[in-house]
């Protein structure tokens, strides 16, 4: 199907027909079969076996299934698997390559920003996108971004603290590496 989606040919998939979808999942090319109505969230979990992404409400409200599509955070339950053909999809598994927790995950651990962990994968993916765009957010901005997620364990306060902590540490890290560069100049 990747071939037919190129160029100016309208891609057609009849109901019930299963076709091969190829996407880049956390940097690796992966393929699987789906019919038109299969959701991206189910495809990632059931066809590709990446079960880090959780499925909660299936209508875009809870945020548990949030992934990155070409680097941008969005709900995988509000997207068809076939729409992801040829695209780059990043999930929570990509935050810990080589089984080493990333800085966001370490901060969540430090601040006890999760208990049952059901919502955490989606929240981490939202934070990863948002901090790329807004490296120095206010507490109000972090709360606004988190409003797209439901967490029933934490009361959100430790999540806010973890996100602000990561942002501060990243800025310090940058400042430190700039100082080192300056010293070597």
């Amino acid at each position, binding site marked *: 199907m990747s071939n037919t989606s190129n160029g100016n040919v309208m891609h057609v998939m009849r109901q019930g027909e299963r076709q091969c979808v190829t996407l880049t999942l956390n940097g690796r090319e992966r393929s699987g079969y789906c019919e038109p*109505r299969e959701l991206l969230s189910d495809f990632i979990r059931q066809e590709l076996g990446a079960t880090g992404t959780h499925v909660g409400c299936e209508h875009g409200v809870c945020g548990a299934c949030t992934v990155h599509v070409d680097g941008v955070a969005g709900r995988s339950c509000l997207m068809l698997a076939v729409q992801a053909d040829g695209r780059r999809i990043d999930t929570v598994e990509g935050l810990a390559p080589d089984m080493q927790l990333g800085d966001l995950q370490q901060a969540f651990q430090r601040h006890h920003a999760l208990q049952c962990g059901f919502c955490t994968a989606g929240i981490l993916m939202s934070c990863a996108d948002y901090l790329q765009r807004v490296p120095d957010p206010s507490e109000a901005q972090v709360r606004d971004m988190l409003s797209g997620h439901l967490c029933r364990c934490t009361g959100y306060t430790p999540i806010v603290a973890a996100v602000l902590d990561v942002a501060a540490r990243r800025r310090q890290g940058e400042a430190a590496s700039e100082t080192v560069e300056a010293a070597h100049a």
Partner: protein
Amino acid sequence: MKPAPFDYLRAMTTQHALDALAQSGEDARVLAGGQSLMAVLNMRLAQPRVLIDISRTDELGSVRVDHKAGLLTVGAAATQGNVEWRETLRDEVPLLAMAFPHISHFQIRNRGTVCGSVAHADPSAELPLVLAALGGDVMLRSRKKHRVLPAGEFFQGMLMTAREPDELVEAVRFPLKRPGERYGFTEFSARHGDFAMVACAAVVTSDSIRLAVGGVADRPVVEQWPRLRDEDLRGALNDLSWKLGAQDDAHISAAYRRHLVRQLGWRVIEEAK
């Protein structure tokens, strides 16, 4: 919570989408960002036979500013995020910049489209309200014809528009900031990002007040007054609150909706002065 079966067509050009709509218009739904449509499909509130995906139709993805014509034109596949994160938006269409933070959540605006929200025509949605408040218009296209409808003619009722089954909402056009205009936007909802129970947008100049109200009637309603003040303005807001025909529903009473129209209306007009 899985969609019923459908045929999937991915339009690579506008012509593909128009051909598909001409062929199966009544039975088809256009899938752009999917942030309303996919939820509706998952809950099986709609079961179209055909989905026409325009999310990869590059020629529909543009966001253009024409200073000469005084318009911001947003193509059918352009996301709300594409518009919201423009650094110049606050100077171009300040009312849009004020409204975006109220629209659902960051993660939804990343994929939801501006035209999709307008085409969906939810009476409590912010983008139809802003389009109506500013007097913007909707560009419709089918295989046979192009037409442009003012927002006031496009919105026809709850989830109802003047779009014909073979037509695509190709773009919407927001008037750019005009000298002397000031703006205000606010809404009341149960939680941040939820649908507005009442939403108000105001455009105020030295001699006029325009107030648009969403979430009460079956479509955004726009009212224009001279620069009323104090008790005159309170009286006009009260008349408007009754004219909108508020209804009791599971969330709040009609009386509370009228109260919100009077209070939020006053507040946005003050904010815009």
